[in-house]
């Protein structure tokens, strides 16, 4: 198998991200226009100068037409992409490959989701006709399977582990409170989170990602052209993607303490970027904290912690805003909110701000001089998921 990557061949030259909110007053079009305009301005480029578009939305629209119509694009190729909750990352990945191939000079990836028009709490996939035998469990319940499995495998007291993941939520709320674009800007302490009623397994609503509307976008070009647009481009170091085959669901050797797809995507991404010690080489990481146990397991799957040690590192503050490797400095899905198609690009937006020292001072990471950021974006459930890992750097080489 070859996964050569496109290290340093493509650069991000502009980004934008709307606030993530219950945007009762904005439709999908409004969100796309707001994110796109911010991104055009960021790159100093007009829409007509962008050669191709990748439009990520899980279920707010179909085809490239809604984006072309919202932005009034003129005879441009627009590809709608969807890959569960990793849709935004997938849009960027396709845009980068298109530029790297030489087919286009510039491309835009835009992700959007208008979740709050559904009339129901949470996220609800639209039904594909089927034989009626599929599981109908919520994502919260599927990810809640992680905690008892992890506690048992590593001999961690159940209540202590519950506090550990509450600490993850608390940390992400701490970071989100310092982010004007984030949905929830209230700090939450561990005791308050632990006191909330369980909705799935041991998880309460405060262990779940916020459900928000929003949009985020990026413009990419060939690396050698980047300085035509910005003094501070981000170079794409790695783009990795794994679509799981679902065998975890039926394979009795799978123990719910790891996400195989994420581990594999991480290994591939590190190889593409030439990273050997992620904990110390990366300045920060945005990871897919859809539920608090997810972030815990990802610390191990992405090689930031040894197996069985992630909970200790979380408790020791290794991943805090001022820690050894800040994780989700923008508040993550937990606090920033999770408009499905936009989240992957929102993560990259934080890397964009932090590595360019443009984050608000109260959440600017001290490790930015390491110059490398990772984003991890997954979709699906334990045993059956897609996983994206991207790495970006402020310098070539």
């Amino acid at each position, binding site marked *: 198998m070859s996964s050569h990557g496109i290290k340093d061949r493509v650069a991000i030259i502009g980004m934008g991200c709307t606030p993530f909110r219950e945007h009762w007053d904005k439709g999908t079009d409004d969100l796309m226009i707001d994110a796109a305009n911010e991104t055009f301005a960021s790159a100093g480029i007009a829409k007509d100068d962008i050669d191709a578009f990748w439009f990520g939305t899980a279920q707010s629209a179909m085809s490239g037409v809604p984006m072309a119509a919202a932005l009034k694009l003129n005879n441009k190729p627009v590809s709608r992409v969807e890959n569960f909750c990793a849709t935004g990352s997938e849009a960027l990945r396709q845009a980068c490959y298109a530029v790297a191939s030489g087919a286009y000079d510039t491309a835009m990836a835009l992700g959007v989701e208008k979740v709050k028009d*559904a009339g*129901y*709490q*949470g996220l*609800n996939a639209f*039904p594909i*006709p*089927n*034989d*009626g*035998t599929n*599981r*109908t*469990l*919520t994502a*919260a*319940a*599927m990810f*809640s*399977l992680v905690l*008892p*499995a992890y506690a*048992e495998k590593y001999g961690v007291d159940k209540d202590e582990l519950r506090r550990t993941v509450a600490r993850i939520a608390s940390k992400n709320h701490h970071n989100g409170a310092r982010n004007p674009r984030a949905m929830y800007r209230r700090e939450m302490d561990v005791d308050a989170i632990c006191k909330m009623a*369980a*909705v*799935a*397994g041991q998880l309460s609503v405060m262990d779940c990602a916020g459900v928000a509307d929003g949009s985020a976008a990026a413009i990419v070009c060939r690396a050698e052209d980047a300085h035509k647009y910005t003094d501070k481009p981000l170079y794409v170091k790695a783009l990795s993607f794994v679509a799981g*085959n*679902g*065998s975890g*669901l*039926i*394979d*009795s050797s*799978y123990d*719910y303490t790891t996400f195989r797809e994420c581990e594999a995507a991480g290994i591939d991404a590190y190889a593409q970027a030439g990273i050997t010690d992620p904990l110390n080489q990366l300045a920060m990481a945005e990871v897919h904290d859809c539920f608090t146990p997810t972030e815990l397991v990802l610390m191990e799957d992405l090689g930031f912690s040894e197996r069985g040690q992630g909970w200790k590192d979380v408790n020791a503050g290794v991943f805090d805003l001022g820690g050894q490797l800040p994780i989700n400095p923008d508040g993550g899905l937990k606090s920033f909110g999770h408009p499905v198609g936009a989240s992957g690009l929102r993560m990259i937006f934080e890397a964009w701000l932090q590595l360019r020292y443009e984050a608000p001072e109260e959440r600017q990471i001290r490790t930015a001089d390491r110059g490398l950021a990772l984003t991890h974006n997954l979709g699906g459930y334990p*045993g059956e998921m897609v996983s994206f890992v991207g790495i970006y750097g402020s310098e070539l080489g």
Partner: protein
Amino acid sequence: MRGIISAAGYLPYWRLERSAIGAFHGGRGSGTRSVASYDEDSTTLAVEAGRLALRSAGGATAPETLWFATSSPTYLEKTNATIVHAALRLPSSTAAFDSGAAVRSGVGALRAALRSGESSVLVTSADIRTGPANSPDESGGGDGGAALLVGDETGGGIIAEYLGGASVTREFLDRWRAPGDLRNKAWEERFGETQYLDLGLQAWNDALESTGLAADAIDAVLIAGPHARANNGLAKKLGRPVAIEHASTVGNAGAAEAALQLATYLETAEAAKTVALISLADGCDIIVLRTTDAIADYQPARTIAGQIEAGNSALPYAKFLAWRGVLAPNPPNRPEPARASASAAGRSIDWKFGFVGSRDRETAAVHLPPARVSFQGGNVDDMEPLPMADATGTVATFTIDRLAYSPSPPVIFAVVDFDGGGRLPVEVCDTTPDQINVGDRVEMTFRRLNASDGISNYFWKARPIR
């Protein structure tokens, strides 16, 4: 010789204390009634009884005909017996028919099977019995299923030989229900009682005459029927105690009651006993059977007595009312399930109804649902079908989902590892959130998951082995 090859009853796990009804409405009540869970209907009860009857019969050949009798069919127009047929994985050459939707159809199907020339016939019957809150049927009814494998010696070993019987029919109005109504209505009780006593005595005399038996040659009398006073009155007139009494534990199972009583009797019957099964429903039907020597070696797969013992009477009355649709609690604010696709279901009959997975012939990897490409080794189209309905397993991990849509939240969900291989994340039923644990032993049961657009969505769930 023709008669019964095997007999089984299926009682749901839940019981309602009649005192709970009295406590709510004001009044008294004693004993319990059996209650089908929210995910059971007459079809699933028949499936469970049918599975037990076929298992009790050992390696008997497939029946030529399947009957399913109920007064509470899930579908009209469409045959419900074909669902039972699919869940029991009967061959397409086995014909399947509904008999309904009257109480009498249960004993009618049994009579037809006993008088047919087919080598074996599976007669299933099941009912969900209820009525408006504080009604006699709510209190006195019982939910359950029964299955009798009937045939001649080519169909299997006969445990009770059919000696004959009698049927008398008369049109009179005692109980009735319009389609879609919850409530069974009844005429003044004394009118039906008079009619039934007359019909019962006539049929009794006819049955003795046609079998050539003297009254004292009948060792046991079973009386089933929706009119309790008439049943008791006939027993008194005949001067015979009834051999099986389910009223205080199970309640009256309607179209399944006669077969349920017979199956209960056969569980403990000795050889060479003559039993008269009497049904008083829109006439009187009497079936006379004599147990054979084979009954000494007969082992029911699961006894009705054991199921009565294992019932859980902690069911709150409010939950019972909600399960039967009498009370409509606020559902979770989640989208209701979409209707199951007929063509998609049609392609996966073996999986959806029969719980048949597949096994890689080379690596033995088990696939639930069945797959064409193996997740171990990648073999393509090298699988054998693997029936898993009778497999038992262990809970590897579990969770309680208080957010997911369910007709009766919360959803209890477990990752089940099957003995001999295979894993499935699947819903667990007939338990409560505080009862389930890692390591629990479970078996599979056929359930109605939900319904949309009038389409009932059937599939399998796990339940604790008790």
